[in-house]
């Protein structure tokens, strides 16, 4: 404790000392010369001082140094560096446009970061794959998919083919904060998880934080996926797109006023429904999804920029006249970048996000329509302060107002059903943070921050009370209280410290450690292994606590071959508190007192991630291996009088059991090889433990029916999962040198050797078993596989 206080004092004194020296600032933006897109993570370095910095999410940089004559280099991998000579005797502004170099044409780079960023940066547990690499990898049915690419990285996994979301370091899928231009996306999948909502043509950059999460992020326990949309070409009108087996897409972008105002508009639609119409028997069935991404930005002057962006996506799933369902996300973000000074960058943001779904049986006596949604409105201000090259400070504050609409059932005409509605809930989540990144010497850097978050659950809602020290059940309810709209039901406040430290062992190796606490105030209610689009989100309140996690990570990073090879080993340990778990047989649908079906769980996850990456050359790619364990424990509620635990409040006799997404071994190999100037070959290979599953321990007979006898949860595993995918990309030859139209073909095969990976194993009586008492009694095990054969794909991509 005292050592911690002492360290803080040293850091503050050190900062004050550094601030006291007279300095001048060079600042500005670094952009892509071809299209004016801001380059995130471009390097600005001064060799004479051995100093440098990198651009932020908007391409802005600021570097304050003592007066003198310097050569300043601006560089970004894949681009020709620019060197400026300057005599620095006053603050200067350099807006730099870098031109892409020949490397980008022939060689794919695995990282868009500064070459040795993985070693030099204090940040650890962060993953980033450049879009050119993502596009060349094999993708299921040719759909370029950021989420599926993430699942090939160490520490990131999924419970199976066609499953929505992803799991990071033993966390649940609802523990990932997925941001699209800073707007939260509540469901990141189309078609129940086969494809992600992110259109690869509309995305500029994405980054996944698995640990050491900076203090500006909060609200989810396990990770942050920060996806940024393209800003739009500010130099000339251009476009890109593709025609695939499942969907086609088109992106248009260009200047409205050159170098001042630009736009980006991108659309994607699948067309399985069009093909279904060909078949008269299938004509009434409709399955499709679509996305629309749009962005416009305007530069008022060097100090003020405005960005307005939005996303609109929907899935439609109609099964004849019997069933109709659709769901989708809508987001809108307005951002204003303002420079208060050369050293103080600010961003003011207003965000709207919505996820809604509906299910309906459109006709008949049992006809109904069921709707549910979650919306949030977010206002926030973020500041970056660059007092000197050794210190970067971020601070800010913001609030999110949530509206939860858990469900409303409306009967259709002639239906015998009654209308029904669960009460809406509201909540306000506010947070303030600061985050300091500081070099404490040539070898030692630290990042430390604190996030203070407050969550208030608000009416209008009826909240039930229950007898103390008894399970929350209808029978133990002792009354209820009706809260008016926006009346405070429950308030939670918490501090979330974040610390990271890096010690450079040499120019090419470093040791890093980090600790972070994160809190999550909203929970997705889902009692299934994989989330469905029909799950609802609920806020923490009187009976549901916010979840917390403490994560510790330690890593060793070492580059070889002039930073061509990156290797790392990271160890992590997470302790989860107050996770939501479900009673056996929980009734989650249309339940106005959901707390009676929920339990509180502890969790722990720990593991090791090994990574080897080759960043440059004809062969690029990575090998990632994760050895980990993720477990939960539901100890239950003790009966004070008997000393026994109430059975309904306990799972697995109160002992730890593997989480549904626990994967002990997880090996991934990703490689891209440039066969020639026009042809490239890419492959993915995955080998991982099967997910935990509950097998029966026996069977018994009741009323002439045979039932499985289950004891402990998740004590067995599906068979080992492995799969090989390949793809070839052919870059079409330009007919003229200055031809703008560039095209490529991508040919791929998913599941090359036709592995039948188990999506699930289930048990049932033989269909020929019904003949009275004990005549058949034959039980069977069945395996269900989603991708049961090699799946070929062909996609035509173009840009102009």
């Amino acid at each position: 404790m005292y050592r911690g206080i002492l360290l803080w004092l040293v850091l503050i004194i050190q900062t004050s000392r550094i601030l006291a020296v007279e300095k001048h600032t060079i600042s500005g933006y670094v952009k892509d010369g071809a299209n004016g897109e801001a380059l995130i993570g471009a390097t600005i370095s001064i060799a004479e001082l051995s100093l440098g910095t990198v651009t932020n999410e908007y391409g802005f940089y600021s570097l304050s140094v003592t007066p003198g004559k310097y050569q300043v280099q601006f560089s970004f991998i894949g681009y020709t560096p620019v060197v400026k000579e300057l005599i620095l005797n006053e603050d200067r502004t350099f807006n730099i446009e870098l031109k892409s170099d020949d490397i980008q044409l022939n060689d794919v780079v695995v990282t868009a970061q500064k070459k040795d960023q993985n070693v030099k940066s204090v940040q650890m547990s962060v993953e980033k794959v450049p879009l050119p690499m993502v596009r060349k990898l094999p993708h299921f049915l040719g759909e370029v998919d950021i989420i599926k690419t993430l699942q090939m990285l160490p520490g990131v996994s999924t419970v199976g083919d066609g499953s929505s979301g992803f799991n990071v370091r033993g966390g649940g899928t609802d523990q990932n904060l997925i941001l699209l231009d800073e707007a939260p996306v509540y469901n990141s999948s189309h078609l129940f998880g086969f494809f992600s909502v992110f259109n690869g043509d509309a995305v500029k950059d994405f980054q996944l934080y698995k640990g050491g999460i900076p203090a500006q992020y909060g609200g989810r326990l396990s990770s942050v996926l920060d996806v940024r949309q393209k800003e739009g070409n500010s130099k000339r009108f251009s476009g890109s797109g593709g025609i695939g087996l499942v969907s086609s897409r088109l992106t248009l972008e260009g200047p409205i006023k050159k170098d001042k105002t630009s736009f980006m508009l991108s659309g994607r639609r699948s067309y399985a429904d069009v093909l279904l119409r060909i078949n008269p028997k299938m004509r009434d069935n409709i399955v499709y999804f679509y996305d629309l991404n749009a962005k416009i930005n305007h530069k008022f002057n060097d100090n003020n920029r405005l960005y307005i962006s939005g996303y609109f996506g929907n899935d439609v799933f109609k099964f004849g006249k019997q069933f109709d369902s659709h769901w989708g996300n809508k987001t809108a973000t307005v951002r204003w970048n303002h420079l208060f000074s050369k050293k103080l960058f600010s961003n003011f943001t207003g965000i709207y996000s919505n996820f809604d779904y509906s299910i309906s049986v459109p006709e008949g006596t049992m006809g109904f329509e069921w709707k549910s949604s979650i919306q949030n409105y977010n206002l926030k201000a973020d500041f970056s302060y660059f007092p000197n090259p050794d210190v970067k400070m971020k601070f800010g504050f913001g609030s999110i107002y949530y509206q939860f609409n858990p469900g409303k059932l409306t009967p259709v005409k002639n239906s015998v059903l009654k209308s029904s509605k669960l009460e809406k809930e509201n909540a306000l989540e506010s947070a303030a943070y600061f985050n300091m990144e500081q070099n404490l010497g040539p070898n030692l850097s630290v990042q430390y921050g604190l996030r203070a978050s407050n969550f208030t659950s608000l009416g209008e809602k009826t909240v039930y009370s229950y007898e103390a020290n008894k399970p929350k059940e209808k029978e133990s309810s002792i009354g209820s209280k009706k809260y008016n709209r926006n009346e405070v039901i429950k308030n939670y406040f918490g501090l979330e410290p974040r610390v990271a430290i890096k010690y450079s062992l040499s120019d090419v190796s470093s040791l890093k450690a980090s600790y972070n606490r994160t809190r999550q105030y909203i929970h997705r209610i889902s009692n299934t292994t994989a989330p469905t689009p029909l799950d609802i989100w609920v806020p923490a309140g009187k009976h549901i606590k916010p979840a917390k996690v403490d994560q510790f990570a330690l890593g060793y990073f070492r580059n070889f071959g002039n930073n061509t090879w990156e290797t790392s080993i990271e160890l992590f340990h997470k302790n989860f508190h107050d996770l939501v778990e479900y009673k056996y047989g929980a009734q989650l649908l249309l339940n106005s007192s959901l707390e009676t079906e929920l339990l509180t769980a502890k969790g722990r996850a720990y593991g090791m991630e090994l990574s080897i990456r080759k960043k440059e050359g004809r062969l690029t790619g990575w090998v990632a291996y994760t050895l980990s364990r993720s477990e939960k424990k539901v100890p239950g509620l003790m009966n004070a009088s008997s000393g026994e635990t109430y059975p309904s409040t306990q799972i697995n006799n109160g002992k730890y059991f593997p989480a549904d997404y626990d994967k002990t071994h997880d090996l991934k190999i990703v490689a891209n090889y440039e066969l020639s100037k026009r042809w490239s070959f890419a492959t993915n290979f995955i080998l991982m433990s099967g997910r935990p599953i509950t097998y029966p321990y026996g069977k018994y007979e009741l009323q002439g029916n045979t039932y499985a006898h289950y004891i402990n949860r998740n004590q067995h595993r599906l068979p080992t999962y492995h799969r090989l995918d390949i793809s070839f990309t052919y870059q079409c030859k330009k007919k003229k040198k200055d031809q703008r139209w560039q095209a490529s073909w991508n040919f791929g095969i998913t599941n090359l050797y036709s592995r039948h990976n188990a999506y699930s194993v289930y048990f049932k009586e033989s269909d020929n078993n019904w003949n009275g008492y004990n005549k058949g009694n034959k039980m069977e095990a069945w395996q269900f596989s989603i991708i049961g054969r090699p799946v070929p794909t062909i996609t035509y991509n173009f840009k102009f």
Partner: protein
Amino acid sequence: MNKNYIYIVLLCLPWFYACEKQITVDVPTSSPKLVVDGWFSAEPGENGQERTHMVRLTTSLPYFSSDKFPVVDKAIVELKDDKGNTYNLKFDIPMEWDANQNKEVPNPQKGRYILKKNLEIGISYKLCIALEDETKYESEPQMVIPYNQTPRIFSEYKEADDVSYDDDGYYIGFEPKFERDKDYYFLWQLYRQDQTGDEDLTYSYAYSGYLFGSNAYTSVDESQTYFDEATNLGESYFIKQYVVSKEIYDYMRLAEEQRDNEGTQFSPPPAPLRSNIKRIGGSNLDDDALGLFVVSSVQKTEIITIKESN
């Protein structure tokens, strides 16, 4: 959410397909456990006789065993009421017609413990079992819950579709009537009534599995519900409504859900079913017996005969 959705999605993406195959897996095996199948109802016996109640005791088997469930025939089984009375159940092996021998023969596989007694409404009962090895079990008390409402039964012709009805035909439906004074839990079962040849005797048998309902959960209460077996013109049916405790309802509902559960990623995880038969001196819940001791009041609908005008 069930696997059909996935199938439909796959159906709509003709470039690939899922596959399903029967596999061989090693499953764990627990030691044999006592299974209690005791179903008592407050229905009076026929022709003024006392009703015969049966408790069948078996033991569990390894999941893939093809053996018949072993019958426990040397236990002491007692029914106790909350007035202090104890009733002994006697082991009985029923006779069954054997076509090969052309006569009735005993069928030990159907051996069960029987008691002739009419249960009283509002009285609680518990079942006590002592096995030959002196292991003892006792159920939680179960009350015969008084209930005065009977569902309305009807039939309706339905054409086959891909969601609700497998075949064209007449389907039996009913409208439950809920009392509002407290939460009630129901099981409904469809019975078919037949006549036997010249003797003009009628007999009935269960024609469906159980449907489940409660005024505690549903927001679509008193809605029309249909059994999923098609019937034919001229056949006669009625419905029995069993009013049971929440524990019985939860057990039966979960048991049926698990029988239908095809274990996809969109299915809830299988759960151990917690019996209301506790082992005396057991160290944890897994020591308890499997199965149920059920006590219910019963309401019977009128008998309807399927006609074209129904």
